[in-house]
Structure formats: structure tokens, C-alpha cells
């Protein structure tokens, strides 16, 4: 069991309420949960259960209406846009269902993107991108454009990009949603290895066999956590 000391992200009584005309939609209805260093989480639930909102707030893309979110012991729940961008840049890596690579950039440039915003110089960034491309098995495709790659290859580029800034937490939003089962499995293996290397991974999925890769599974319903399973 993890101690309080290695808590990396903690929600305490988080609400996210959307005003929809006259009535309110409570996407998150008072959620409290702690994520620890080295965890591998799967967040599950039907659509509208609040799992996407959970990911957005975890990923510092959105701010909660109420409640406290501590990331690396820093309260990020009501941060301004610029410092929040810095938090994303320093601590977080994103993997999306639809890969979200930038079409006009080469594989190498896509991987270098976080480094560009970190202000790394060109040579150092290139070195890092090449190293990461090797890690995900794409060193031969550095000069390719995303459109020249298969879905699995694109997601591997996305993984490499998510790793470029050496983040503490990797947030994966249905990472295998657009992949066939074989390549999906490859990506999940990759995430498992990253987790073994010490990365904290939080993943949203609705497929039980994908969720099975995680060691902790969170079930959500109507903006609340209904069940947490550990394996």
C-alpha cells in the first residue's frame, strides 16, 4: 500500500458543474481520490459518467468548479492559464484516441514538440527525439509525415511525444480506441513497460480487456466513483 508521501495527484471533493440554461449538469459530483507514483489506473464508465471530465481536470486542461486538486503537492485547481500550461509541459504527457499528431510535421518534429516549448535547442531536441523513436521502434520513420504511417505507428509516435518532456504522469484517453486488437495490444504492452519503468499512467477506456492491463480500475457513474478495484 502506498504511503501519503508518494501521492502524485490528489482530488479532494472535486465538483465540475456545467450550467445548461436553467438546469445544472454535475459532471463531477464531489470526487475524492489519490493517485500514487507508479500507479497504473484505468478509469471506466459509460458515457456521461464523468470520466472525460475527470481526465480533463487531471490533465490540467480544465479547472474544477469546486474542490482541491493537488498535483505534486501544488494546488492547481484554480491556477491561471499560463502557469497551468507550464504544469502540463513539465509534469504531464498526453496520448489521445485519435493520435493528434500534427500533420505537416515529420515524425521527428512531432516528437520534439514538447521540447520546443520547453525551449530546448535544436541539436539536443533532435538527439532526444531519435532516442525516443528508437524506443518505440520508429527510428526508420523519423522523416515521415504522420499520413505515411499506420495507426499503430502513429500511436507509437504519440507515445514518444508524450515521453519527450520526461513527464511524471501519462494520461491516455482511450489509447487503443482507433486501433485493431493486435496493434492495440502492442501499445498496451508499451504502456505496461513504461509503468514498470516508473511512470504513473492514468488511462480512460471502456474495454475490460484493455482495463485489465491496469493495476487499479476506477468505475464511475453519474459523476461519482462507484468502485475501485485493485489487482
Amino acid at each position: 500500500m502506498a504511503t501519503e508521501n508518494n501521492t502524485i495527484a490528489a482530488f479532494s471533493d472535486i465538483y465540475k458543474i456545467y450550467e445548461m440554461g436553467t438546469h445544472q449538469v454535475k459532471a463531477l459530483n464531489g470526487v475524492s481520490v489519490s493517485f500514487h507514483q507508479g500507479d497504473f489506473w484505468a478509469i471506466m464508465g459509460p458515457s456521461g459518467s464523468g470520466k472525460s471530465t475527470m481526465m480533463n481536470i487531471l490533465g490540467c486542461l480544465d479547472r474544477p468548479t469546486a474542490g482541491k486538486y493537488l498535483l505534486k503537492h501544488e494546488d492547481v485547481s484554480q491556477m491561471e492559464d499560463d502557469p497551468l500550461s507550464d504544469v502540463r509541459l513539465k509534469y504531464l504527457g498526453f496520448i489521445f484516441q485519435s493520435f493528434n499528431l500534427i500533420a505537416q510535421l515529420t515524425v521527428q518534429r512531432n516528437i520534439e514538440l514538447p521540447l520546443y516549448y520547453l525551449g530546448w535547442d535544436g541539436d539536443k531536441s533532435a538527439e532526444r527525439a531519435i532516442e525516443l523513436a528508437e524506443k518505440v521502434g520508429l527510428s526508420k520513420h523519423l522523416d515521415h509525415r504522420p499520413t505515411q504511417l499506420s495507426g499503430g505507428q502513429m500511436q507509437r509516435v504519440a507515445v514518444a511525444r508524450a515521453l519527450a518532456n520526461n513527464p511524471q504522469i501519462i494520461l491516455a484517453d482511450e489509447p487503443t480506441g482507433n486501433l485493431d486488437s493486435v496493434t492495440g495490444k502492442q501499445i498496451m504492452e508499451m504502456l505496461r513497460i513504461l509503468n514498470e519503468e516508473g511512470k504513473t499512467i492514468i488511462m480512460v477506456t471502456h474495454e475490460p480487456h484493455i482495463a485489465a492491463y491496469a493495476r487499479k480500475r476506477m468505475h464511475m457513474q453519474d459523476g461519482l466513483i462507484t468502485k475501485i478495484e485493485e489487482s
Partner: protein
Amino acid sequence: MQEPKIIRNIRIGIENLLLHKMRSFLTMLGVVFGVGSVVAMLAVGEGASLEALEQIRKLGSTNIIISSQKPVEDDAAGTQRVRMSIYGLKYLDYARINESFSDIEKIAPVKLLRQESRLGTRQLELRVVGTTPEWFELVPREIVAGRVLAARDNSAYAPVAVLTEHGARRLLATRHSIGQTVRIGSDNFEVIGIIKSEAGQAQGMQVPDQHIDAYIPLNTAREYFGDTFTQISDGSFTREMVELHQIIAQVNDTDNVRATAEGIERMLELFHPRGDYSLSVPLALLEQAEATKRTFNIVLGSIAGISLLVGGIGIMNIMLASVTERTREIGVRRAIGAKRKQIIVQFLIETVVLSTFGGFIGIIVGISIPQVITYIFEMPTVITSLSIILPLIISVGIGIVFGIYPAANAAKVDPIIALRHE
């Protein structure tokens, strides 16, 4: 080699623009023509006013020029077969003006005559200018050989003449002509100097000189040729008696030109009730010409401004479309950790690169058009450094002004919505 961040940003901007070469090129066209028309109009406007201003400036901005003018009633009386018309400035006017105005530094009387002249075997009709040495200070001319008139020539009634270069050439005179004798009318004059012609000096090119002048001392002119001229035309005589054709006065300061001119005007009104003179102040003409030029520039500037505005709107339009098209890219960049400011800079650089490059091409177009105008219409055009630097600054400015709105739009993109954007 580490490249500076701004260079890197510009390179990335150019790379993005090169992905859509045709679109970028078409977007640029508005600025190309806008800047092109600014450069071309400035060149034409500058050229048109230059000639006029140059002419006036040559008269001297501190000068006041008083000329004899034949009164209107004398023309009507000219129907009589023989009639002497007496008009114009008097020697006395010259003396009075010279003595009365302390602000006048230099003053030169001018007496004009036409005389047949002869040097060796060559014969030519000359314009003979009787004047004082001050004339050469008021209307500076380069001395080709010899010297100009001196005060002693005038006081001694010396039969000496200074020829203009072309006059000298037409009479087959060279620098060896100094000291030779030229026959003007029925008298012999010693050639003491040769000066550059006015026209030859104006544009630095050799054009046939209309006025072939011989400058002789005023006293000599009075003594030898008198004040009466007879002209024979259509079998009738016109006889005129004019003492001085012109008085040129130089005032010590441009601020005093107007007051002195008014003083001279009042004095002349007193002695010349017929109004047989005219007074011209190059400074006033210069100010008027400059005002005209300003108006001209404002009109041209407005037209050019409108075309630049259209060009800018064109760029803004495309950039707005580009922002919408790249919403997802913006979302990804924001999610990764790009700040709003960095997104603004990215799009702003693309717009500025577009408009500046368009500006460069526009300047090339704008420089070529005046060449064509000069060639076809034989109109002078002048490209000044301002007419290149100004449009370049404007094109950068257009990129910034019309890029701000699309870039701000890009920065406003909510990454959550953008990432879901299809």
C-alpha cells in the same frame, strides 16, 4: 550551431506557409499590389514635383524677383504704326530698393537685350544681360574659364563679356577664347570668362541651350545700347523703352522674405501706378508647390492605403480560415503546454512573413512600374529610399495589424473542444 529562437520560429512559419504554396502566394498578392502601388505612386509623385521644386529652388528661397511687365493699355495702343511704349522698372527703383530695405543683403539689376554677335567668322543672336557682379552671387554658376564680372568692370564701363558655355561653343569659342574679341551689335567686347549654362546644369545632361547669354556690365550696356529697342514685325515698328527688366534681391533670412516683399510692393505701387511690374517670391511659390505636392501625396496615399487595406483584409481572411482549419493542431499544442502567447506568436509570425515577403515583391513591382512610365510617357520618376523603406515598414505593420485578430482567435481555442474537433 544553435539558431536563435526567433529565426527558428520564422523558419517554422515559412515551412507552414510552404505547405500551401498556391494559397500563400494568392494571399500575398493583395499586399504585393498594395505595396507596389505605394512605391510606384511615391515615385511618380516625387518625380512630378521634383522638376517644379527644382526650378523654383534654383531661383533661391530668399530671393525676391521683380520683373518689368508691359501694361495692358500699351498693347491696345500698339495698333498705331509707330508708338513708343515706356514702362517697367527704373534705375531709380533699383537704387531706392537697395537703400530702403536693411534686410536685403544683395541686389542685382538685370537689363536684357537681343543683339547680333560675331566671333571670328561665326554669327549668332545673343541674349545680352546687363548686370552687376552681384548677379553671379545670386544665381551661382560654375566658372568654366576666366572670371565673372567685377565691380571695376561696371564702374569703368568696360567692354567685357562673360559667355555661357553653349554660347561660347556655338561661337566656336573655347577656353582659348578668353581675351579674344567678340562683336556684340556694333561694338567689340573682350571675352573675360565662360560660365556653365543653366540648362546644362539642371539635370547633369547636355541639352541644347535656348538662351545663349552674354553678361556685360550694366553701365556698359546702358552706354553702348541705351534703353530703347526697336522691333520690326509685320511692317510696323514697336518701340519700347525699358530701363531694367528685372531686379533680383536677396534677403538675409527666409523669415524676412514676406515682409520685405510687401515693403517693395508698397514702394513700387507708389511710383508705378500703372502696375507695369510683377513681383515674384520663389519662397511663396515653393511653399505653394510643396502644398500641392502634399495634397497630391495625400490623394495618392489614400488610394494606395485602400489597396493595402484590401490586401491586409485578404491576409486576415485566409489566416482566419487557417486557424479554423488548424484548430486541432492548436489544441494539441496547448495540451502539450504551449501558452496562449506562444500560439499568438506562431500565427503572427506566419502573417508577418506573408505580408513582408509580399512587401518585398511589391517593392520590386513598384520599382519596375515607374521605369515603364518613364520609358513610355517620358515622365520623370524618382525612387527615394523613403519610398522603399516606408512600404516595407507598412507591409510588416499590415502583417501585425491584420494578423493579431486571427492569432488571438487561435489563442482563444479551448484545447478540450479543439481536441474533439474534426
